[in-house]
């Protein structure tokens, strides 16, 4: 970790988020009849996904409300028609509660990593007739980061989530339990740990000279206005924020963003205009006439990189990670089935079923020309996952009919299969799945080749 940090400080000008994130370019959605604008990139094909750490896991496990909130957050069903049609959920932008630096939607984004929440696509009534996208923020540590919204316009996370669902994405009025659960989920997402940060937000441990100088510069009053300093707004603390809005010369009043885990939160500023700390420091140097030397700039970037670091920011998106999330979602059914809660069961079945269908597509069928070998293993994996989808649908149908005992029996069978049989089948097919980087690249290269045939003609 330390070696990487030192390298980053020296090479800050080349510090692009893409360097950390995944190994292949995101694959665009394309075609004449896609629900989203052609060439939209959701980065759903990334092999590495942001790691998500929950506060409550350290305290013994996630509650029903947190799992329900995570489920709803991953469900297009709570949003409006266009999002539902396109399979877009809150989790599409906030991948595992982090941001999505590669998300790009023509006419709704001006660069990867930002999105116009007041654009015409998802809710024409919310359209302000201006292309004014905002950065897709990470939600890590959100419980420390009030007020909410890039401009801090809402003091309540509850109100903010409601606004996103109903106004920005034209969703139906969410039930109180769904809204409360999403808030509970977001508030449970922790910052990733950073062992270099000690109490009071001070650097600790094996700190470099450059980082120490940067820390001092960070707290030094600005030459032209001694009432200001970097640390005056990004107060060294648990979250490095002051919960206030400021005009830093970027076009208005915007709330102070956290520096925690910020190495992985690019692009920066409210509209995501900057890719690197280098650009951010340059902006402040120019805007506030800081008179930084080249060494000062390097030291500040070293400090920011140290503060913004994290342990294992990404994890490989294999079948194991997918199954863990699916199993967490499925715990909701353990409560909702006995309660005969039709709405929650339907939401869970649709969402988990969707995840299982997506997981199925990680194991190419026999018609896929980009993978050879492991045919039988792939067939077994696909069969197992499809079987689970149908078991869930039987549960949904049984609860809708008031046959909760039948649903409970099916759920018992579902959990039995998910405990050992299905993981074993998927493990047996992993080498021929899209989780294997070679197969993944071959598959997407083939798709890209087909797509390019179209672009060549236009």
């Amino acid at each position, binding site marked *: 970790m330390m070696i990487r940090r030192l390298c980053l400080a020296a090479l800050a000008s080349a510090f692009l988020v893409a360097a950390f994130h995944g190994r292949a370019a995101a694959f665009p959605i394309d*075609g004449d009849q*896609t629900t989203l604008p052609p060439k939209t990139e959701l980065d759903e094909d990334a092999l590495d996904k942001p790691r998500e750490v929950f506060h409550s896991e350290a305290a013994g496990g996630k509650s029903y409300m947190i799992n329900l909130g995570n489920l709803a957050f991953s469900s297009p069903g709570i949003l409006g028609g266009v999002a539902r049609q396109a399979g877009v959920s809150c989790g599409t932008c906030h991948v595992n509660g982090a941001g999505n630096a590669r998300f790009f939607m023509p006419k709704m984004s001006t660069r990867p990593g930002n999105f116009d929440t007041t654009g015409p696509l998802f809710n024409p009534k919310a359209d302000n007739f201006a292309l004014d996208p905002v950065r897709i923020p990470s939600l890590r540590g959100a419980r420390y980061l009030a007020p909410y919204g890039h401009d801090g316009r809402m003091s309540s996370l509850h109100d903010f989530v409601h606004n996103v669902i109903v106004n920005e994405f034209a969703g139906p009025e969410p039930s109180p339990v769904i809204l409360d659960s999403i808030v509970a989920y977001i508030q449970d997402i922790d910052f990733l740990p950073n062992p270099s940060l000690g109490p009071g937000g001070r650097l600790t441990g094996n700190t470099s000279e450059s980082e120490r100088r940067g820390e001092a510069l960070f707290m030094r009053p600005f030459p032209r206005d001694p009432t200001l300093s970097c640390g005056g707004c990004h107060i060294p603390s648990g979250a490095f924020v002051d919960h206030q809005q400021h005009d830093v010369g970027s076009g208005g009043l915007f709330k102070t963003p956290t520096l925690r885990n910020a190495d992985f939160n690019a692009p920066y500023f409210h509209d995501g205009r900057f890719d690197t700390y280098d650009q951010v420091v340059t902006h402040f140097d120019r805007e506030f006439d800081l008179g930084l030397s080249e060494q000062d700039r390097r030291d500040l970037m070293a400090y920011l990189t140290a503060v913004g670091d994290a342990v294992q920011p990404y994890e490989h998106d294999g079948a194991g990670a997918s199954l863990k999330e699916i199993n967490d979602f499925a715990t909701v059914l353990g409560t909702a089935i006995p309660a005969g809660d039709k709405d929650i069961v339907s939401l869970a079945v649709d969402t988990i079923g969707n995840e299982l269908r997506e997981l199925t597509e990680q194991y190419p069928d026999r*018609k896929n020309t980009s993978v050879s070998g492991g045919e039988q293993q792939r067939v077994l994996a696909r069969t197992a996952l499809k079987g689970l*989808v*149908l078991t869930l649908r039987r549960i949904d*149908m049984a609860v809708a009919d008031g046959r909760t005992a039948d649903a409970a029996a099916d759920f018992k069978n579902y959990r039995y299969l998910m405990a*050992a049989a299905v993981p074993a089948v998927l493990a047996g097919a992993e080498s021929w799945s899209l989780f294997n980087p070679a197969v993944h690249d071959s598959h997407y290269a083939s798709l890209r080749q087909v*797509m390019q045939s*179209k672009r060549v003609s236009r």
Partner: protein
Amino acid sequence: MNHSWTAVCVLLLMPIGMSATQAASLDDAAERYRPYMIEGIGQAMTGVRNLRDRIAARDLAGARKAWISARAGWERSEVFTAGFVPELDAQIDAWPHADSGFHAIEAVLFGAGRTDVESETEALADHLNSLYGKLHEMALTPQGLLDGTVRLAYEVGESKADGGESRISGTSLDDMRNNVAGIDFAYHTIFAASLGAIDEKLAARIDQRIELLKTIVAAPDLRRVDVPALRRVSEELVVALQGASTKLGLQSPTLEASSR
């Protein structure tokens, strides 16, 4: 691997048992599917012959039209292709990027806007000819056709939000409509009467789900297909057909070709 095979045994446990009368009745009904199968592949062949002519004439619009017609016949036939002729199915409908087959030709005609697909079209015609040659003698089993119907019903529910399998030509919705037509015909030709005599309620449920699917895919374009409803109804149809298999004395349908 041992774990995998054990797991599959657990997953695929299914009731077995079919009375002689039911079996004979279903065998007869399965035979009634044969003309439809021949007609569908025949349409695909006619379309490919037209495609060959239009390519020779360097008529891009005509070639595209012929491709769509050939594709329609193929998609209607998918109830049996994956299960009964898996090798030809993989060659004819290979995806995403293939040297031959429908999608290889689609990329050139609809993507690049060119007509230089002579060799690919010849290969497709050869594969379809091979298939056609088997159709009159191929043993059609009710189990195999139920398997194919169920697999296709499941596949119809897959998301096409990214434009679907035929995204270059923009004809994924046509694929879905032809798939549903194939399901409708296969079910009503082979299984509906027998099931109706045994369990009228279940037969009615299946009828209703097929009608719902037809309504959903009748949307004017892919963007207006109710995707969540499509998925739900397709899964409900599969669940109902799984229930029907037991009533008809057949094994539980497979969800992937060649997995039995």
